[in-house]
Structures are given as structure tokens and as C-alpha cells.
């Protein structure tokens, strides 16, 4: 059972880079864990920390004004590269529950939904607006209403977003895919019987 996602009202942090790949999100040395938790402290490791282990002050997510942010605003093709689910685990563990970008890599996008993170793809101009807002007014809260598919910032603006209805349903209710699929046990068994007779070599 995942935590349901309904309305999120939180600070938004800018990560103004394109093509942020999963090697950047979680460098390989942190993939050796056998757990899902505890990855947040090492997220974005190579660009977040200096050689001596201190925080890189130029890295936006290290700035004090973005502590406690739960929404990440970033550039196109976010999450490209490896299928490692450690990437969304790490982002979630940092405290982010929603990522907004012009586009996401396919596997990463899937992995977000499996972990209760909402990835929202918006047109470039709207992401640019949110990016500027996050940079200039870091303390303003952004409200993400999943039921209404709406992003609002006080009276400043309202953006609608698209989401697959099935995924929306699962997120709103915190549903576990495996539990849902196992309710279809008889359909799977029937499929397997037909498969064995049609394709005996499998």
C-alpha cells in the first residue's frame, strides 16, 4: 500500500538542467543497497557535494530557501538512462512528492507512479514560468490538486495537467498494482493454458 496522493501544497525547488540522467540522480556506488530507503542523502551526489564532502553551495537544492521543498521543477527528458528505481526512491527520500518537467524518460516516469510520486509534464512555457517563480519567490507555496488536475500558485496562475486515468486512480487511492493484478488470477491462468497449447515451445 502506497501513501495516497491527493492535494500537495508545498515549496517548489528549481533544478534548471535538461537531460538529468539517472546516473546523476543516483550515482552507481549507491545502487549496492538491498533496501528502498535511505538513498536521499546521496541523491545527486556528484553535483551536490564537493570533493571534501561539504555541500556545493551553487547546487540549487542545497540552498536554505529550498529546504522542505516537496515539488521539483526541472528541464526536459528528466530521468533518462538506466531503469534503476533507486532514482525515484532517492528523490522521494529527499522529500519530493511531485516532479514537474516538459518531459520524462519512459521508465523513470513509470517508476515514479509505483512509488507514489506524481510526475507532471507541462508545456515548456509553463515550466519556464514555474522555474522562474521557484527561483524568484522560493517561499511561495505551489498547490497540486490531483483530483482536479490543477496546479495553482495563489491567485497568480492556474495550470491544468494531463494524467492517465488509471494511474490517477491508483495514486489517489494509494493502490498496489500487484494486489490489483492478482484479482485477475483466473484470466492469467486461462491465458497460460492457451499459451501452452498454441506455443508449446515456450
Amino acid at each position, binding site marked *: 500500500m502506497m501513501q495516497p496522493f491527493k492535494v500537495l501544497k508545498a515549496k517548489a525547488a528549481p533544478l534548471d*538542467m*535538461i*537531460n538529468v*540522467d539517472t*546516473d*546523476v540522480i543516483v*550515482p*552507481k*556506488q549507491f*545502487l*549496492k*543497497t*538491498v*533496501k*528502498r530507503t535511505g538513498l536521499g542523502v546521496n541523491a545527486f551526489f*556528484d553535483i551536490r557535494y564537493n570533493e571534501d564532502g561539504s555541500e556545493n553551495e551553487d547546487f540549487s537544492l542545497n540552498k536554505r530557501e529550498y529546504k522542505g521543498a516537496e515539488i521539483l521543477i526541472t*528541464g*526536459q*527528458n528528466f530521468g*533518462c*538512462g*538506466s*531503469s*534503476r*528505481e533507486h532514482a*525515484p526512491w532517492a528523490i522521494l527520500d529527499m522529500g519530493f512528492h511531485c516532479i514537474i518537467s516538459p*518531459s*520524462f*524518460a*519512459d*521508465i523513470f516516469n*513509470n*517508476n515514479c507512479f*509505483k*512509488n507514489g510520486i506524481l510526475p507532471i509534464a507541462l508545456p515548456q512555457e509553463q515550466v519556464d514560468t514555474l522555474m522562474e517563480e521557484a527561483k524568484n519567490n522560493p517561499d511561495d507555496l505551489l498547490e497540486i490538486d490531483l483530483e482536479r488536475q490543477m496546479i495553482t500558485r495563489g491567485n497568480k496562475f492556474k495550470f491544468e495537467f494531463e494524467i*492517465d*486515468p*488509471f494511474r490517477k486512480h491508483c495514486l489517489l487511492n494509494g493502490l498496489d*498494482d*500487484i494486489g*490489483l*493484478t*492478482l484479482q*485477475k488470477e483466473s*484470466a*492469467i491462468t486461462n*491465458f*497460460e493454458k492457451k*499459451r501452452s497449447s498454441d*506455443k*508449446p*515451445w*515456450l
Partner: protein
Amino acid sequence: MAPRTLYQKIWDDHVVEQSGDGTCLIYIDRHLVHEVTSPQAFEGLRMTGRKVRNLGATLAVMDHNVPTTDRSQPIEQEDSRIQVETLRNNCKEFDVTLFDLGDKRQGIVHIIGPEQGFTQPGMTIVCGDSHTSTHGAFGALAFGIGTSEVEHVLATQTLIQKPSKTLRIAVDGKLSSGVTAKDMILSIIGEIGTAGGNGYVIEFAGEAIRNLSMEGRMTVCNMAIEAGARAGMIAPDETTFQYIKGRPMAPKGEDWDKAVAYWKTLASDEGATYDKDVVLKAEDIAPTVTWGTTPEDVVPITGCVPSPEDFDDQNKQNSAKRMLEYMGLKAGTKMQDIEVDVVFIGSCTNARIEDLREVAKVAKGKKVADKVHALVVPGSGLVKAQAEEEGIADILIEAGFDWREPGCSMCLGMNPDQLKPGQRCASTSNRNFEGRQGRGGRTHLLSPAMAAAAAITGKLTDVRKL
């Protein structure tokens, strides 16, 4: 019935159930498992008291973490050792077939599937690894999944999916001499970009694709993910059937005939349409190398490092500046003037027997440049044995290459094979991301023949001139 594409045929054949909004439950024929993306999935099964549903469809191997040096010693790095042992214990507990470290069949997960005949046309194949797209070379629908989905497949042998859009990339004509499958896929990614395939399944077609061996086709499909595609695939033909025939897990006897008859129905129908079409001319493709830190940043080996101003898009300009700095390159430098410290020949992209033959052809009778460390890491124990039998290993060792045990090695630096900060590497792998091969390491992607040439001269080199 309306004409269908290869992708649509395989999709239709695997739908267990479809709901009103188009979401489907699809059956998974083959599931490959490795040590990095599976521990949390097995843990999930254990916590819920679930079992692996179809053991015959599941095959595990360790590859990412394994050292490529002496196998008789225990793994030194503790976290790597724990991950490898965790896979071993999980396979034992859940009865999953495992090619363990001492097994000759052990190797990179995307090399061993095809090698064993586990990978076949018309199948749905998944693995918790993005380069699962490799298996699409057989006319299978193969794609990478995350750990939650690994658990989903282990427990139910299905996945919840929506159909993808289709993109046909045709490479017409014939490749010039010295130009390989790797150059072809790098050029394709350069053309459509790393997000060009987002939301699509790519079918590679055209004369130049048809003329590729299975090894070459695997190289092309392997990197479909680097163009952002969900999967890459190539229609099965005689080349495919000949490759599979007689492999340990391939259909036998009467089953073989039935399977081939089915496989022959898979190619896209005449008149089938795609959501998007891209056509390239094979003769326009030169030996290709990357200069930046995404696989779309390619130039012909005869070209120069580009300048940020060469790009129209502001985001790409900023990103190019950052890449040049990371790569330690100046705009306008000739690619052939770039010196390398390390050469890595291996990975699921280019560690099959044909790749090693190409390397041996270039390296025969020559010597690796003094300052270069050149590693050759065969894709599996069986590739290694074959290369030793064919005399390839002797040629390479004689030339000064470091001949290793099979594994993912320096493709991703999860094991002791890593670049040091600032080191520059000519690599046959698939990703040139920042830090991918080791923190601060600089990667240039290229073909095995080009990598061999770079090892000999110590610089990026046009293999056609060597």
C-alpha cells in the same frame, strides 16, 4: 484484419485483459534477473508471502557488481559482495535458475539470454535493466522495468501497460567499409536525439539493418533506449533463425518447426503504418564518436568538437558549455587529436564474439600505445572461451590488451573497473553520462574497431586509415 506492425502483432498476442481506458494486462514470456535491481523485489515477495509464478520463464545472473579479475577470490568490496550473495540466496529460496560466478554460462544479462536461446522471436521479455531493448534484435518486444515491476512480474508473470506509439527507422543502402552497427545507432541517436524515441517503440528496418548479423542487430537495439524509446526491434528472418537453432534453450524437433512457422508470421504486414517514420542513408554514416555527455552528442571521426553556438536551442547551448567543461575539450579541436588514457572494450552493447573478432582484426601484429590501459571484457564465459579457442585472446594479449573475466565492468563502474577523475576513455559501451564510468571520468563512445584503433595510436583514430 488491417495490416499490423511487428510490435502490434506481439502486443495483441500477449494481452491477458484490456480495460475500458486502453490499459492492458500483458503476459511476460521471459524475465531476466540480476543482482542490482532485484533484492527489494524478492524482499517484497517475502513480506507478502508470494512466490515466483513461472520459474521456467525466469533466469538470473550476476553481472553488474562482479570483479573481472581472478574469480577464485571472494569479492573484496563488501556492499558488492552482499548484493551478489543476496541474489544467490534469493534464487535458492525462490527456486530461480541462476548462472552463478563459477558457471561458464555466467555473463552480462543481455548477452547470456540470446546466447542460451532463452531469447526468441515473438516473445515479451523484461529485465530490471534499461538495456533489455537488446533482445528486440530477435523480433521480441523487450524492455527495461523498475524494481516494483520486477516484483510484479515475479509474482504475476504480467505487467500493466498501455500500448506505445510506433516509430519506423529505415536505414537504406549499404554501409561503407569500416562502418559498423555501432556507428549506425550512434548516428541515429544523433539524428533523433536522446528524447526522440520517448513514448515510441522503434522498429529498425531497411537494407542496411537486414544485412547486419545478429550481433550487429543487438548492438543497434541495445541503444534504442539511449534514444528514449521503450523498445527497439527488428523483424526476425533467416539470420535470426540460424542464430537461434541448436542453442541450449531453443525449441527442438517438432517444436522447432512450429516455432519457426509462427516466427515467420511476425514481420510487419505490407501497408502497416507507423506513427512516425525516419529514413537514413547508410552511405551517409561514417565512423562515429561522441564528444559530450549524452549519446546524442555525436560527430563523425573526421569532424571537430562543436561550439555551444552551433546549437539553436538555449537549453542545449547551456548544456553544451557544461559538457565541454566536464569533458575538458575546446570547441574546434579535431576529434582525431584527442588523446585517451583508457580503452574499454566490453558491455552489453559490444562484448559478443563478433565484436572481439573486429578488435583482433585491427590489433593483430600491433601494440597498445604505452600510456594506454586497454581492457577487453568478454560478455560471457562462453564468449571468453570461444575467443580463446579462436586465437583472439592470444592476439589481444600479445598486443598488450588486458584480457578479463566476463561482467559489466567499466560500462558503469559498480565494480572495481572505474575511471579516475579526469581520465579519458574510448569506450564501446552505451552511456557517456557524467560520472558513469567513474567520478570525473570522460567517455567517448565508439565501435569496437574504433576502440581498438584508439588503443594502438593512443588517440581517437579513423580506423579506415589505420
